[in-house]
């Protein structure tokens, strides 16, 4: 390791624009040379201000030094440069947890979990909840169903897809919808879309083409599909699934079916009744 540090230092001296400052600062951080690590990372960022990994590295150095707000700001910068960066979201959650903002920490962790399955994140969520005194009863849910309603569709969707389950009144029962800035806007989106199911119901009733199964529309920002929920929510409940504009419609249809099946299992197991 010492040899590596020396060789990276030499290389950086020869070529100050080299990206070798990244492994160098990381090695220094791991060795506990936090001031030096911060200096190397900061100088590297002067040459590469739009490099998200460099901001992520500096954030970790700040966090190790106990400069939590500086760390948070650097991770925030990472998200601006690279929306959906799981490491940055987890880092921000760590900062908020350390600052005692458990609710926001949990929200960030849930967001990170929605982007990619990760056992560490699940454990972190449990830790945050235990710390904030929230007791989650998962006894009634099968082990393959997540206990957190926000995560109902985790594992089914990629990071450019999102799904949520709405009640007849347009309220969000499960799932999430994150805006580019990381805010969960599920409730707003759900309320905006809820009236479409009434129109679908009306059209199919008067045209005599049977009950409606789905509406898919291609929009500028997303391909969106709506489908009536089955089982306990059959009376007006609706599943909303959105993907990136380039998502093939056939794939969206298939994902919709999978999400509906999960919703059915979740509702059958008591999800949405306050147990989950």
């Amino acid at each position, binding site marked *: 390791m010492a040899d590596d540090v020396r060789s990276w230092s030499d290389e950086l001296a020869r070529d100050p624009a080299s990206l070798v400052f990244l492994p160098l600062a990381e090695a220094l951080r791991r060795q506990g040379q936090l001031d030096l690590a911060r200096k190397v990372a900061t100088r590297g960022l002067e040459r590469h201000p739009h490099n998200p990994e460099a901001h992520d590295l500096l954030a970790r150095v700040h966090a190790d030094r106990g400069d939590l707000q500086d760390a948070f700001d650097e991770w925030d910068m990472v998200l601006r440069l690279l929306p959906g960066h799981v490491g940055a979201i987890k880092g921000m959650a760590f900062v908020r947890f350390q600052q005692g903002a458990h609710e926001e920490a949990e929200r960030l962790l849930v967001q990170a979990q929605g982007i990619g399955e990760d056992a560490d994140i699940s454990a972190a969520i449990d830790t945050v909840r235990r710390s904030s005194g929230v007791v989650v009863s998962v006894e009634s849910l099968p082990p393959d169903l997540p206990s957190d309603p926000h995560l109902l569709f985790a594992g089914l969707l990629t990071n450019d897809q999102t799904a949520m389950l709405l009640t007849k009144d347009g309220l969000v029962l499960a799932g999430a919808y994150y805006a580019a800035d990381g805010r969960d*806007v599920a409730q707003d989106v759900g309320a905006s*879309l809820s009236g479409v199911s009434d129109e679908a119901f009306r059209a199919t009733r008067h045209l005599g083409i049977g009950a*409606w199964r*789905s509406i898919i529309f291609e929009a500028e920002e997303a391909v969106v599909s709506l489908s009536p929920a089955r089982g306990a929510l059959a009376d007006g409940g609706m599943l909303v699934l959105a993907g990136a504009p380039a998502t093939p419609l056939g794939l969206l249809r298939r994902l919709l079916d999978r999400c509906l099946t999960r919703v059915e299992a979740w509702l059958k197991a008591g999800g949405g009744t306050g147990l989950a």
Partner: protein
Amino acid sequence: MTTRFTAVLDALIRQRGVRASLVVSATDGIAIDSNLQIGQDGSRVAALSASLYRKARRSATAAGFGATGFMQLEAESGRLCLIGGDELVLVVVAERDANVGMIRVEMLRSAEALA
């Protein structure tokens, strides 16, 4: 009588499983031109599809999805496909097992005629 939409509607009705093709006023829900198979109620299709189209467009904008393009309502025994702009909507009523991919391509191509 031939209108500027006749060719578009004829091309759509020739697709397998298509029962009706219409050009509808988006705001009034009235059929401007149509090609209907026997048993299809053009005025009813026009009123309901325009209403669905307007609602979906408004909702999509409110939800931040931006302007909408092709739309499809799938039901147990049929489909409604829609595409349009502020004033006109091109509507296709098709059977459930119709080739919606082909219909979509034809409608996207035809949508220019509505502009």
